[in-house]
């Protein structure tokens, strides 16, 4: 008796969702088993991590600082996927957004209600500028955006490093290279989260409206789903692709601006904590859905926060990064597997004579 895979004519959405959830549960179980073998108590660790993260105001605060930027970097990656492109440069756009916002925050004086919007605007523009070159190269000459957006990240990292350790450096900071403190901060909300989370949710809502409720969104989704049909439809695919990419960069840039105006209050080299790259993971988990971005960013925030707690118990933070990679791998497999089913082949009977 043997088994084999057979492709389904069409896989219903509920089946795909079920497979993805199953993959996450399965992945967590395996991870728990591995921890168990290594001598940890996975059940106690999970309860403790969840209890702290969701059950205390410190925990919720930590969760908020993680989820807020992840929502935006996840959205940035997903927006690019709408036109079938990969924005691997979320990390660099995040850094440039943070850089532009910090520059304004440090060197321009004015009332907060003008300065904060100005910082966000500067962040968005810097993020868009950072993806402009890859976007034009893609639309005009079909240069692979995966390579170009990725390479721009390293430039951004060095750029910020130069400013944080050179011209903008706060000489009183001796441990890490960091700029002067930025005097403008987002107001807090119930003393736990700053209002950045609402800005983020508004951006997500605006993106949803843009892609689902406007003529521009219809045209962009259409040429994104089939660029070959753009000429037939009479939709200028190149323009739509460039605009969407710039939008994606701007969103990642806003995440950077949010980080310096809300959480960190300074520009420093480690300011992103991989948020740009984790955004790609979140977008992949969300599979094109705005609600999916919220769920995936929340899950990712929980995992990262749990990782910080596990670190105090002797587990490396890298183990949690490895766990997210493991979960993503399983979800990717589940997504493909949902399109197949297993069929049993009865024991081989006799072959024809001759």
């Amino acid at each position, binding site marked *: 008796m043997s088994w*084999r895979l057979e492709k389904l*004519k069409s896989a219903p959405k509920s089946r795909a969702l079920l497979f993805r959830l199953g993959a996450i549960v399965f992945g967590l179980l395996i991870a728990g088993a591995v921890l168990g073998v290594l001598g940890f108590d996975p059940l106690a660790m999970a309860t403790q991590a969840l209890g702290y993260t969701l059950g205390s105001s410190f925990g919720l605060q930590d969760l908020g600082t993680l989820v807020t930027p992840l929502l935006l970097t996840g959205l940035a990656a997903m927006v690019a996927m709408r036109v079938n492109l990969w924005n691997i440069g979320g990390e660099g756009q995040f850094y440039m957004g943070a850089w532009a916002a910090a520059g304004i925050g440090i060197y321009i004086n004015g009332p907060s209600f003008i300065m904060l919007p100005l910082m966000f605007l500067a962040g968005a523009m810097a993020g868009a500028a950072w993806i402009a070159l890859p976007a034009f190269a893609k639309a005009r000459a079909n240069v692979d955006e995966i390579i170009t957006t990725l390479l721009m990240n390293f430039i951004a990292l060095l750029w910020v490093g130069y400013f944080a350790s050179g011209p903008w450096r706060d000489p009183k900071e001796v441990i890490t290279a960091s700029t002067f403190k930025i005097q403008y901060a987002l107001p807090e909300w119930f003393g736990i989260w700053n209002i950045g989370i609402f800005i983020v949710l508004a951006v997500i809502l605006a993106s949803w409206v843009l892609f689902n*409720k406007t003529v521009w969104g219809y045209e962009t*989704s259409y040429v994104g789903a089939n660029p070959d049909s753009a000429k*037939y*439809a009479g939709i200028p695919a190149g323009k739509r692709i460039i605009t969407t990419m710039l939008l994606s960069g701007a969103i990642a840039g806003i995440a950077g601006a949010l980080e310096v105006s809300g959480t960190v209050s300074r520009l420093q080299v480690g300011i992103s904590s991989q948020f740009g790259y984790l955004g790609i993971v979140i977008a992949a988990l969300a599979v094109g859905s705005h609600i999916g971005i919220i769920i995936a960013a929340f899950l990712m925030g929980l995992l990262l926060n749990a990782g910080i707690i596990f670190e105090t118990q002797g587990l490396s933070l890298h183990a949690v990064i490895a766990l997210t990679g493991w979960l993503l791998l399983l979800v990717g497999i589940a997504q493909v597997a949902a399109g197949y089913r297993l*069929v049993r082949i009865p024991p081989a009977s006799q072959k024809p004579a001759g």
Partner: protein
Amino acid sequence: MTKQHSAVKLDGITKTFPGVIANEDVSIDFRKGEIHALLGENGAGKSTLMNVLTGIYKHDGGSIFIEGHPVEFANASDAINAGIGMVHQHFKLVKAFTVAQNLHMGWDKTPKWISQEFLKQSAEDLAQEFGLDVDPEAYVDDLSAGEQQRVEIVRVLARGTQVLIVDEPTAVLTPQEVQSLFKVLRALKESGRTIIFISHKLDEVLDISDRITVLRRGKVVATQNVADMTTRKLANLMVGRDVVFERMDRRSLHDTDRREILRLQNVTAVNSAGAKALDSVDLSINSFEILGVAGVAGNGQRELSEVITGMHPTTTGDIMIGGEPTARLGADAIAKLGVGHIPEDRLKSGFAGDLPVSANAVLRSYANAPLSSGPWYKDREAIRVAEEMVAEADVQTPDVHVPLRNLSGGNQQRLIAKRECRIANQLLVAVYPMRGLDVGAVERLREMIMERRDAGAAILLVSEELDELLEMSDRIAVLNHGRIVGVLDAEEATLEKIGLLMGGETIGLHA
């Protein structure tokens, strides 16, 4: 070996997909030395059945017997080893390889180390063995569709095939090439092989087969000797009701205000490789008129349709639609003038397959009221309009939210025809609109096109089915190497005249 000897017997084959019964209790006996036609509408279960027979799918119930012995195929190579081979509608050849290389590719009898001389000699031997004329050193890319098909047949026969399945083999051939294919199939039959001939062209099936099995909704409706069959009976069996194919009324009755809608003057265009695709084309179509365009595929049909609809630039010449010069306009501006376009490759250029049916249905109307106002797109309206179109065009789909890719080819074609007819107030450019459709779907599509003509639109109909062109068109233009080599009035056009023009013989006819 008697004619009654069974080659492959399917006994009660059932194959289900979640929610769909593709084949139900299918029993067919394919005999040695017969050409057995398998007829059925799109979605009747022909492809699934052949996928079971060639080991690609595993059936859920029933058995397969080869020469009386039960067999189980775990995979496709089991079926090939059991002597079952298939020539697919879209050839599985590597175009950049020579004929000899293609013949020896993926074949366990090909030695590990081979020379060009060996390949050539071995290919010649194979061609001779099966009596098929192929040039071993020619590159597949340079061959005509008919020649490629011959290579494909030799390749399949070389694997020891006793049961040869040919899927829609005549779709890409000229009438002359069809006759030579039929000769080959008859010779193979005489050698004792079994031919399973899949088609939806009734005339052809009656011409070539010994017996015919008709499938409808996954079940066998009848297996009959060809002598007992007529076109009418077959169409009735396939569709389940009477289908009326009469010669369409030429020219609508109320054509008093006939005027010129489309005019092409001295239009020249080059293809993507820079070669001349259209050469000094002059054409004119009036309102209430259907102009058929005949020609072997690849002689400028695609470019002709694309320069008219604004998808392809012209190098010289003028195009007027309804009196307006359009040669410099884009596809959206031309569509807005009331020009519909059913493209050759619907899934590649006419649809975004991953988007829902609704988004695809409104491609020509999303920018107008009631679907939008200002920058806002009303997706609820889009769903309502799409549901209306789906109902009117009789598109079979669970709802308008499923990805368009999930629709069968016939349903995709009905939807695109509906979408384009809705805007075609002046001109409808239809490129191979009936390709791959079954009789029921063809009937419905013809009605849609005729309805446009009767409403006063001009129709440009590109087709490879000469009978269809003769039945529907008022005039027939023939393309050869990008030139219009003749325009015939339908009354004086015959298959022979068109066939000669298609082959490149220019005859002095009025243009």
